[in-house]
């Protein structure tokens, strides 16, 4: 896919990273799979322009130099933010008591465009080629709205279109005394740590206490050596709400 794209400008992208993701010096222009991102200096300003199947966005930035970072972000922003929770729904897996299994799921990629430098970034744009869908985990009274991800289950990393999908390696451990059918995993977006290389990826763990109760968390280490950690949208909001390290699934781990 990277062979079909075009680019110009200064780019600090490593060659093993997927072609769209990376850090770019202004001005630059890149085109990939129907997506065009361009920045050009106009006096004291920088004009940012993005064209994707979902539409065209133009922004005027109050600086004329520096870098722009493009990387996968927490997939809960489109078409508008209504939740910070993501729910993976997959083919049920029977887990033996006191056993662990690692499965590979896919998640939708939303692409974030940031300006700024270490520790102080701002989000300029977010877009995606993946089709968003939302769902409800729990009851309307006490549950949560979730970004719904319908995914297959693989025993090894599945092939993905890097612009649309990333890979989640999920280690599921059944700590209970009964067999449990697991078909859901729910995470809060502030805890997500997405890494990117040839594609976007995350590693997570899930502790199953019973068919009703489970706990999930995302690990902070790259799933594969050499992957870069993506800039997250959550810290740019500078929220005082603390990041919870794990999510307690109180409404069941199966259908």
């Amino acid at each position, binding site marked *: 896919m990277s062979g079909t794209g075009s680019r110009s400008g200064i780019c600090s992208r490593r060659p093993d990273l997927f072609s769209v993701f990376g850090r770019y010096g202004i001005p630059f222009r890149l085109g990939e799979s129907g997506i065009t991102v361009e920045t050009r200096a106009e006096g004291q300003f920088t004009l940012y322009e993005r064209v994707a199947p979902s539409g065209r966005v133009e922004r005027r930035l109050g600086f004329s130099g520096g870098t722009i970072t493009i990387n996968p972000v927490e997939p809960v922003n489109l078409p508008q933010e*209504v*939740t910070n929770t993501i729910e993976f729904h997959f083919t049920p897996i029977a887990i033996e008591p006191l056993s662990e299994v690692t499965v590979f799921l896919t998640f939708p990629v939303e692409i974030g465009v940031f300006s700024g430098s270490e520790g102080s970034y701002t989000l300029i744009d977010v877009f995606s080629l993946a089709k968003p*869908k*939302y769902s*409800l985990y729990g009851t*309307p009274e006490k549950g949560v*709205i979730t970004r719904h991800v319908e995914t297959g289950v693989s025993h090894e990393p599945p092939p993905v279109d890097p612009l649309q999908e990333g890979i989640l390696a999920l280690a599921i451990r059944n700590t209970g005394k009964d067999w449990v059918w697991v078909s859901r995993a729910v995470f809060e977006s502030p805890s997500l740590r997405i890494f990117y290389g040839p594609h976007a990826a995350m590693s997570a763990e899930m502790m199953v206490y019973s068919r009703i109760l489970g706990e999930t968390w995302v690990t902070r280490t790259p799933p594969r050596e050499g992957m870069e950690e993506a800039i997250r949208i959550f810290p740019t*909001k500078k*929220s*005082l709400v603390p990041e919870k390290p794990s999510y307690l699934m109180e409404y069941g781990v199966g259908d």
Partner: protein
Amino acid sequence: MVFESLSIPVIGTVTLFDLLVFAIAVFVVYIISRIVAIYLKKAFSDRVDPVELDKLVKVIQAAIIIVGVYAALPRFDINIADMVVVGGTIGLVAAFAGQRIVSNFGSGLFIIAERPMKPGDNVTIGEVSGTVDQIRVLSTIIKTYEGVYVRVPNEKVFTSEITNYVANVARRFEYSIGISYRSDAETAIRIIRSLLEDHPFVLAHPAPSVFVDSLAESAVIIRVFIWAPSRVWWSVRTEMLWTIKKALEEAGIEIPYPQRVVTIAPGARIEVSHAHGGGDIR
């Protein structure tokens, strides 16, 4: 002369000078609370939800003023224990004098504790519908959908039926769509289901439901039940209805006007007379 007059007792042992110092102290404390409020708003406006920030600022302002007034009170040489007794008596008298106010105050406390709504929620209280702007101790401020300011006394809020449209994270709405008897209901249902699957905010779970509900006089009625996030349900509702209408029409499925099929018995005669001499049909 001026200084002498300041030292004249005006209430008990409290002098004019004491009153002046107390007034200045309260004014300074008020100014400090305002400065702190502005600083807090500047520092946290992009980090904290505006409603929560507003509450936080008010609590801190109140705390500063209470501490400031308390610190200035010794100027009066007032015994706090006496003040509590006097305050209690005054409170009792005030309660009798202003039962409505006390009732509103009590109701306000219950509403704040029970939390049937919060600022920003879309509600109907009695006959008033709109968005909750503020929940105060004595009254609740509603901004109607027309942008009108309505102050509802808390006593009325407490005794009225409150419908909160966004208290739950998701809510259901429905359409009744009539298609003609000549159209294929199964095709119509398939088209509607496909549109619902495509819309991001038509929730996957609980899944939407589409079915033939009744065979009415002029149309086959298809009912559509949709769950959507409460925050966006209205835009989904308005958007989907028109999308469904257009898609059905594009597929050649007729949404009929009310109509009646009249069958004329063989050999029957119909006579139509035109008022302006247009002739007869027999």
